């Protein structure tokens, strides 16, 4: 009886799940005892009901799809530009000296501060939202990839050359496999920023998406829907994070 319990306690997830359960328990307790006005703190049951309603009428799925597509487009674009740029900066000292100060400056400009400009330039459609995510993640992605390339041990590059490799072999045969785990990790970390930014963009101006749903709910004092939106946003973020970790474990098992 004790032994399975003890091995359960040692499982790496046990404490993490317990931490989440504790907060949900406190919430249920506070809401159940009606210590707080339920207008401000809906019960878990009410939030679940809001979720069922939203899933039944299809709003939940269309909101999730809209937000996810924006993140995929913006982040995909950012990754596509950051990869060659970061590798070039990491491999070429002059190129790095040219661009690093610029990127360091741009990195400290909060991406949401670009929203007014993006709206003036591109209106209220999809493009400004995608570009916001692009701007908000490009510099971090680039600098982190650059760092990964800089830390490729010189010996690994030179060994390839003394084995008959040419300079053009280095990128695909040495640099790319060596930085792959760090690139995936950089993407995982910066994906969180992308997921934040899409919600910000939708809070400001949108006709669909999880952020939009939350602003609408605020207008009608539907705190149950706000809670639902927050939980769904968190859960999707968690799934994305775990997917990246899984991908890393599968594709770069040597680095674990």
């Amino acid at each position, binding site marked *: 009886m004790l032994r399975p319990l003890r091995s359960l306690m040692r499982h790496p997830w046990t404490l993490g799940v317990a931490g989440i359960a504790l907060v949900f328990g406190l919430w249920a307790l506070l809401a159940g005892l009606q210590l707080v006005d339920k207008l401000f703190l809906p019960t878990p049951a009410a939030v679940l009901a809001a979720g069922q309603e939203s899933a039944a009428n299809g709003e939940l799925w269309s909101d999730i799809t809209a937000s996810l597509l924006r993140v995929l487009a913006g982040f995909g674009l950012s990754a596509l530009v950051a990869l060659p740029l970061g590798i070039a900066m990491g491999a070429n000292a002059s190129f790095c000296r040219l661009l690093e100060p610029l990127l360091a400056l741009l990195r400290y400009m909060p991406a949401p501060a670009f929203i007014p400009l993006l709206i003036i330039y591109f209106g209220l459609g999809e493009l400004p939202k995608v570009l916001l995510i692009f701007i908000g993640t490009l510099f971090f992605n680039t600098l982190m990839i650059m760092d990964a390339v800089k830390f490729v041990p010189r010996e*690994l590059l030179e060994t390839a050359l003394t*084995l*008959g490799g040419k300079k053009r072999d280095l990128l695909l045969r040495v640099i790319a496999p060596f930085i792959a785990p760090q690139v995936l990790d950089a993407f995982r970390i910066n994906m969180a920023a992308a997921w934040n930014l899409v919600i910000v963009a939708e809070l400001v101006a949108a006709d669909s998406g999880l952020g939009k749903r939350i602003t609408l709910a605020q207008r009608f004092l539907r705190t149950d829907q706000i809670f639902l939106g927050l939980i769904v946003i968190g859960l999707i973020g968690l799934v994305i994070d775990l997917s990246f970790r899984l991908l890393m474990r599968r594709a770069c098992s040597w680095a674990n």
Partner: protein
Amino acid sequence: MNLVLDAVCKRFGDGKQAQLVLDRISLAMHTGQFLALLGSSGSGKSTLMRLVAGLEQPSSGSISLDGQPVRGPGSDRGMVFQKYSLYPWLTAAQNVAFGMELQGLERAEIRERTGFYLEVVGLAESARRLPRELSGGMQQRVAIARALAANPRVLLLDEPFGALDLQIRESMQEFLYGLWRRTGLSVLLITHDIDEALLLAQQVHILAPRPGRIVESLTVELNKDNLQDLRLSPAFQSLRHRVADTLRRLDGDLA
């Protein structure tokens, strides 16, 4: 194989800050020779190795292999570094195959030669293991197998056992010596370990530091049938003392 260095100098930096690291190094080695460059830190021995490998260019003087001037790195000079010697994402066998793949050899030939060279270094059993699953000594043996599989004319070893524990280092020295005897390789070894140089090499060039220059060249004439016995023999010990004195004096000049 004829490797010739003629009055090779290397400076780092420009103008007044220029620092002479290697001063008129001349030496020659031929097929099947085992040659060691022995020096303490600051003797520029690693720089010298990088020049021979073609990873850097001499400031003056010339390096040639079989009459052809060395202009850049190439598979005719295989190199083994002290650390980061293996690609961590490739298995032992894939590491050995790496050079042959870069050279565009046939798949069947790569497989055959990979098996052969893993066998040569005694690691056929570990073919599928990743570097992190191998001990430090095993990793260096894979690195040597990989260098050999690329079919170099001369093997350049830059303190290949410097990061290993003493006991493993001694068994690796015996392994390398046996390998050289069996295969008739040409080996240029760089080391700061007096025992290693005297035990393994036929000829030892002693480098003085700042700037690196050859101050003494000696031919080792000892019976090397049993290295373990040799380490303890009086003849070896007295030679060892003499070389240690020389090195100490060279470092003492600085103080």
